């Protein structure tokens, strides 16, 4: 299958390693990976902050770039959530029937990474090796927008050598919320403070998640506290093998 990688602007700029890991992982699983260099940003921040019309050119650009792709995979639940849940609303704002139809036609071809692995490729054991104590934070958008269920956990459970510990109150929000984290910084931090406390309780070396945006927030708090817990995207764990450390 020809997989077109939607890296997301966030990963491209802040977490390039997630893209590298995703590429290695998909190739290891026999997929042909392409990266369309014209891609930019899905417009989620604009739409969710209330600047909905500003998301129109970004959605149009996304369609121009990926319209002809066979399958589009992104290592981000929230950006895929933006496309699947909110692009129809963005398209509706324009009243442009052709655009609306093109978006509807595009959406079924866009997958979040764990969805793609478990639902499309039907694999849970990706041959990964990661001998560390890890706890998994299921992000709100993966759980309640994409409904990926336990797909990421099934992938992690199959990783050789991993010591996967359950995160207490895992399905509760970490407090990131996009621009919420700066607009309501105090409340965001109050929520984060509980999340960090649960993470520390697990004794894990690594917090793993399917969204680097939440990890930027959780990891930023842990780093400020010098807690000595690392954050890694799911792809970064699944890409490691006994032969290859990414």
């Amino acid at each position, binding site marked *: 299958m020809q997989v077109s990688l939607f890296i997301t602007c966030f990963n491209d700029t802040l977490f390039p390693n997630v893209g590298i890991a995703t590429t290695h992982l998909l190739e290891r699983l026999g997929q042909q990976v392409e990266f369309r260099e014209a891609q930019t940003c899905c417009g989620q921040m604009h739409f969710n902050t209330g600047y909905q019309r500003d998301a129109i050119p970004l959605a149009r650009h996304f369609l121009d770039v990926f319209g002809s792709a066979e399958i589009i995979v992104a290592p981000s639940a929230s950006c895929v959530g933006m496309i699947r849940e909110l692009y129809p609303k963005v398209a509706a704002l324009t009243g442009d029937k052709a655009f609306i139809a093109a978006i509807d036609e595009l959406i079924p071809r866009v997958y979040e990474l764990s969805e793609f692995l478990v639902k499309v490729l039907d694999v849970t054991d990706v041959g990964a090796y990661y001998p560390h104590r890890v706890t998994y934070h299921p992000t*709100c958008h993966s759980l309640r927008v994409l409904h990926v269920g336990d797909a990421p956990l099934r992938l992690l459970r199959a990783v050789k050598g991993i010591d996967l510990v359950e995160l207490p109150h895992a399905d509760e929000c970490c407090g990131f919320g996009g621009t919420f984290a700066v607009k309501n910084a105090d409340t965001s931090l109050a929520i984060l403070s509980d999340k960090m406390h649960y993470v520390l309780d697990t004794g894990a070396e690594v917090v793993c998640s399917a969204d680097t945006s939440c990890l930027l927030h959780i990891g930023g708090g842990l*780093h400020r506290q010098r807690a000595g817990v690392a954050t890694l995207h799911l792809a970064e764990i699944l890409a490691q093998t006994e032969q290859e450390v990414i």
Partner: protein
Amino acid sequence: MATKTLPMFPQTAKIALADTQLRRNPSKPTTTIRTKRANAVAELPDWEALRAAGSAIKTKVMRNLDEYLLQLEAAVQHAGGHVHWARDAAEANTLLTTLVQATGADKVVKVKSMVTDEIHANDALAQAGIQAIETDLAELIIQLAHEKSSHILVPAIHKNRSEIRDLFLRTIARGQQLTDEPKQLAAAARTYLREQFLTAQVAISGANFAIAETGTICVLESEGNGRMCLTLPKTLITVMGIEKILPIFQDFEVFLQLLPRSSTGERMNPYTSLWTGVTPGDGPQEFHLILVDNGRTNVLASETGRQALHCIRCSACLNICPVYERTGGHAYSSVYPGPIGAILTPQLIGVEHAKSLPYASTLCGACYEVCPVKINIPEVLLHLRGEITAHASPLNPETLAMHQLAQTFATPQRYERAQKLAQRGQRLFMHNGVIDHLPGMLAGWTTARDLAPLPQQSFRDWWREHKAKEQA
């Protein structure tokens, strides 16, 4: 009456977050109720079908509200009740005080009612020389403390029992021996309330549901105080928001399952009172129904926003909300706190008066998942955020920054230039290899979070270096 602009949520939340007692009080009970609800819901194999039915019935009601209201009016009148219409809070309060004054009473007992809080009925009654006594235990507590409700279902959730003991000793239990044991506190309140029930001539209630077909009004409660108010006094006045209608009696089948399980996590609430007009020789002999709009028809006019009127005030969204759990209800500065308040209040009073409320959410979606009538709260929050930015000044720094970013992201050339600029420019904010102090609008990020510097090689740089050639 001029609408008051609410204080900004980030500021009120800051105060609430600093209150250690408050931080401990709301989170414990909300966690308990949340678990109880989850268990009560998990028991029902057809829960999702019930939610869908609840949502469908409410959608039908909103679509035909004008007809259902007239049907309800006729049914109530036919059963011997009187129906009054109030456009806003002022009209509702005038009606209410006039009706009470006509009985000659200077004291009324009240069953917990959100809409009377919304219109500040107690203050209006007090100005007319009428004492309104709240009879729901938690409502009584906050009334005695001269405070405001912080939760739809458990209004005194922000107070603990030792605070309540002190309050009772200062007010209704002066000179009595009282410990902070819940049993003793309840007994003290009961002694006080019994006397009020037995002497009151007039009761005021809200309504959970009103059946258009039959004119039947329904109130659900847990303490029996409602039953006392609804049966003992000679005159009963029910104040109800116009959206509380259900079309037919059979709709109770759906809603009497949805509400208690979502609200208190019980299969059935202890007291469900239903009455239709007046029955000679049994219960109140005079019944008035005041139908209140107070902004609801404005909400109804919004295609996306009107689902907020489907709310049955169960408070499941408050109990699950990560924001509410930390800030408590007072930070919302509104009778309706939590996620439902964040979408209902701005629509009732106008978004320009509650600009910060639609942003008081992480969009985590937990509220939508538990809502018994499937109100898509995140969808309405986004819709309202859109309304707010549409009315913002084009010179507002955030608006300017967002437009600029959208233009930057719209072409790969501009996007890459900005990426390179950020990689170089970040040095200004770096100390010891991390960004720990951001300026302006982003300052909130670094108050307690570090930011790792942007890697010098973006993913696209890596791709060009390693893959593009390989694939060429």
